[in-house]
């Protein structure tokens, strides 16, 4: 087995669940993030754009995924972090963020691990799929 300290390929090292995303959550994130796109907080705007309701900022879900990540590894060791927004995250979603070590690698000459990340809602639907490169 490939090992790095106590981290091995296949280990689930990131795991965190979050409270349901409420309208209030989106209002606070709108103000705090600088992303004032009304589609996330203004029902009239969202409906006019063809959506049944407001929905989460993708970057709020990425912030949760980042939080789950840096609960598990030291923030200063994170070299890269990326995600694909696979599906819209609806109001009320209860997210679980998980990450598994999928590779031990050298990144710019530094021993690192690749952590494959996912944020899923309570039905198991993947909302964000991503990865992080973390020094080990």
């Amino acid at each position, binding site marked *: 087995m490939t090992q790095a300290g106590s981290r091995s390929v296949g280990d689930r090292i990131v795991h965190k669940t979050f409270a349901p995303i409420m309208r209030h959550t989106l209002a606070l994130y709108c103000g705090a993030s*600088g*992303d004032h796109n009304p589609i996330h907080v203004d029902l009239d705007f969202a409906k006019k754009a063809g959506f049944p309701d407001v929905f989460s900022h993708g970057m709020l879900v990425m*912030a949760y995924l980042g939080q789950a990540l*840096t609960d598990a590894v030291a*923030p200063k060791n*994170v070299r890269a*972090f990326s*995600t*694909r927004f696979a599906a819209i995250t609806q109001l009320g979603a209860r997210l679980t963020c998980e990450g598994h070590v999928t590779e031990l690698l050298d990144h710019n000459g530094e021993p690192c691990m690749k952590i494959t990340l996912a944020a899923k809602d309570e039905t198991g639907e993947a909302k964000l799929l991503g990865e992080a490169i973390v020094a080990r």
Partner: protein
Amino acid sequence: MVDRSAIGRSFTPVTAHVEPGRLRYFCEAIGERSPVYRDAQAARVEGYPAIPVPPTYLFCLEMMDAENPFEFLTELDIDLARVLHGEQGFTYHVPAVVGDTLTFRSRVTDVTEKKGGAMTLIAVVTEVMRQDGVHLADMTRTIVVRNPKAAST
């Protein structure tokens, strides 16, 4: 509709300050409780000169301090209501901490059509520089534009 002629377009650089109050508000909004992001002493113990920012906060800083946070959409004549975020990436060279002044320079690196023109994907790269000239980070994002249905389809 945006086409490949937009590749290479750059936008007004944004200078943003990492302010403790705004960072605290962001941590509250996302439920971030880790002491390293909230307490200067805890941050120093971890080796930071001041409180560092959470992994996605650079994206927010650029929008917060932009004169027009949706400049690249208005410049490219894209309706905000038709935009979704497709992908987002960060490469970190040096941690950003409270007290930093950062300059963000964004440019379009790719434009591709998908699903027979139903969607346009726009890739934007943003270089983040610190006040002392240190190249702090890079961001990449893909914006998905849902195009109006063509009359012929």
